[in-house]
């Protein structure tokens, strides 16, 4: 059985693609067979790996019927990790593409045909709670909500929470909030720490692991590699993703256990 985790945020520039890429790699290195799917029409995953815009076939080609779903899956040099890139998509086609993704059943059929053999699918989504993100939430088992540790981001987190709540109530009852992940945390700055303190003390499901703001992310982006593949000894930031992968794994197991308990209770009653 495949578990799908959508990385979402109501705000742009919070590090969703960085989280998706490095988390997927860390999970793969822990032995999970992982598919990283890029639902962002901008193709963030491809750009993070320094590929030219439209250089890889993928989801957009599947949606347009140019290739079969399985043909969009690209193996990587990490044997447990494969990519489903955005694919070839002209900028003027983005509206049509998002509408196609949003149509009921489209994404479900694509994943059903392409995710065989994978234990986890990590869905990278565009900024905001628009059609591509909603499409991802419709097919996901879990949402991982990236919260930039800055007051403006915290003030708008309700937008994402309300959309997740709505999708779960109306469109996908399987969906749960796996957690809220604080990103771009700067422990030397009071506003950033203030967000962490408020989030940890007021919200449910804020992860223990946080992702710091650090120059190494820009260096990795410049070279087009995930943090763990940079030369030299593993950076503390790369180790953060190992911690995050462990926490995410245990939360998925915990959520599956909670669902099983709820199922037993329903049967007994």
């Amino acid at each position, binding site marked *: 059985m495949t578990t799908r985790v959508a990385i979402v945020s109501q705000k742009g520039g919070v590090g969703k693609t960085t989280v998706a890429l490095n988390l997927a790699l860390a999970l793969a290195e822990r032995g999970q067979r992982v598919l990283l799917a890029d639902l962002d029409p901008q193709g963030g995953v491809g750009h993070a790996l320094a590929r030219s815009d439209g250089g890889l076939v993928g989801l957009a080609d599947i949606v347009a019927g140019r290739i079969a779903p399985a043909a969009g899956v690209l193996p990587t040099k990490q044997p447990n990790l494969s990519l489903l890139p955005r694919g070839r998509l002209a900028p003027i086609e983005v509206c049509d593409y998002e509408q196609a993704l949003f*149509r*009921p*059943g489209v994404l*479900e*059929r694509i994943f059903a045909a392409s995710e065989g053999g994978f234990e986890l699918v990590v869905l990278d989504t565009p900024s905001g709670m628009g059609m591509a993100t909603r499409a991802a939430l419709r097919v996901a088992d879990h949402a991982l909500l990236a919260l930039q540790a800055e*007051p403006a981001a*915290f*003030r708008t*987190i*309700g937008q994402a*929470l*309300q959309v*997740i*709540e709505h999708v*779960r109530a109306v469109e996908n*009852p*399987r*969906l*749960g*909030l796996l957690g*809220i992940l604080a990103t771009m945390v700067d422990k030397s700055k009071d*506003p950033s*720490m*203030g*967000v962490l*303190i*408020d989030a940890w003390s*007021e*919200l*449910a*499901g804020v992860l223990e692991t946080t992702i710091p703001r650090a120059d190494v992310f820009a260096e990795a982006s410049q070279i087009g590699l995930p943090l763990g593949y940079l030369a030299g000894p593993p950076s503390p930031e790369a180790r953060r993703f190992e911690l995050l992968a462990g926490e995410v794994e245990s939360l998925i197991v915990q*959520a599956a256990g*909670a*669902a099983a*308990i*709820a*199922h037993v*209770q*329903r049967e007994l*009653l």
Partner: protein
Amino acid sequence: MPQRSRHTRIADDDLALFRRVSRSLQAPPVAVAAPAAPALVIAADASWDEVLDECVRQLGAIAAFIIDDRGLLVAGSGAMPLGTLEGTGARLVIAIHQADHMESAVGGARGITLEFDGQWLTGIRVPTESTPLTVGLFTEAPLDLEARRAVAEAFAPLSAGVA
């Protein structure tokens, strides 16, 4: 003027919303309220005709019938002539087949509900080892999901040996 939290100066109303939603989303997705009484209680050894009779009685249906995938009536119960049920059933099977081909369909159609003047016709597919059967129900109000599932479950043991 709403009070502000100490660190992020977020309005208390907003914070209360975030708190409520984040907590509700932590609960298991399927942990819903305890189910009400079963929509349909059928004896384990009931025959086709008895299950149809119970559908009419317990669900308050005007008529209930079973139709095979060719549109031929297998059995019927309630206040409608069998000839009417057969003609209705044949069209119902065609309608479900058409639903299978809708572009937005995810997998095959499990059933269909049609509204007429003051009556509802519901068709529920019951899988068998070969071709599916369809249970049809005329009711004065639409059947909810639980009742439709109960009907499918009631017929499932009977259809297990149908070839």
